[in-house]
């Protein structure tokens, strides 16, 4: 899905850099980044909206109406590229959990790094142990998890890598 934000109809904005920094260029909303399916883009919610063409700046919409070409209240902020990159990766990690329900980004474990749901075993750990032990069975046995959970972690890693590279 790609949604255009109408510059004339999006007047409400708060910006830490003043109105001069307030520029409305075509933006798009990636449903993967948004983190919930497009039909639910209504009422209260949080969405990360990227300027088209680069991730150098982004706006975070705090109130999302049914369609993004209607009025939308946004908080516009310019942050260092490193923080933005982290935010992008975090959003991507969270959104991929919708496709891989066995994986979680619950913040209490590993500070929100993707891990097998309910287990202190991150996706990175799964790959690391797969490298060391050589098989899915061995990893599952060593950490008392299901084979399917291990496979899901591998699939998640692939999707994450492909999404990050293609973005």
């Amino acid at each position: 899905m790609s949604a255009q934000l109408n510059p004339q109809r999006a007047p409400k904005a708060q910006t830490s850099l003043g109105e001069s920094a307030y520029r409305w260029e075509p933006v798009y909303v990636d449903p993967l980044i948004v983190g919930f399916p497009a039909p639910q883009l209504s009422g209260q919610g949080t969405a990360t909206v990227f300027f088209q063409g680069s991730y150098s700046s982004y706006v975070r919409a705090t109130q999302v109406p049914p369609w993004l070409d209607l009025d939308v209240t946004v908080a516009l902020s310019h942050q260092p590229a490193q923080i933005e990159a982290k935010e992008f990766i975090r959003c991507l990690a969270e959104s991929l959990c919708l496709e891989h329900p066995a994986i979680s980004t619950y913040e209490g474990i590993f500070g929100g790094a993707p891990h097998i749901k309910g287990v202190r075993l991150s996706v990175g750990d799964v790959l690391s142990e797969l490298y060391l032990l050589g098989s899915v069975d061995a990893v599952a046995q060593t950490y008392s998890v299901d084979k399917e959970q291990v496979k899901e972690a591998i699939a998640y890693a692939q999707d994450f890598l492909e999404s990050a590279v293609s973005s």
Partner: protein
Amino acid sequence: MPKTFLSRLFPHDLKLIVDYNLNPAAIDGLNKLGSVKAKRTTDYGFSQGADDKDLVYNKDRAVLLTGDFESIDEITYPPCQHEGIILLREKRASPEKIVSCLKAFCQSGHRKKTSHNVIHLWEKKAIIHKHDKEVEEVQL
């Protein structure tokens, strides 16, 4: 606990709580080091999915050994607010490598510095974050 003559002569074992994501085969090797008593998080009664902070501030007064140095560090968990944290910085560490890192550290004479500090541990060196943001780098 105040230090006595006997406690100085016979130092306490290093009580470790080994994070669930480290290979459990390493625990046997750690316990064979002699001065280390290591148990997995689940052996201390924690669930497989225990929170970071529950492990750091464990009531068993054990030093946490973890490979998760991205979210657990001296900034999130400053020294002196917990029993101690050892962050294993070697990637894809096999059980043997985990044991060799700890062995090198214990034999280097810096073992007692684990108490209440945050230690980044490699195979050949360690960086110890102490109270008041004091940092000490030691070669192993």
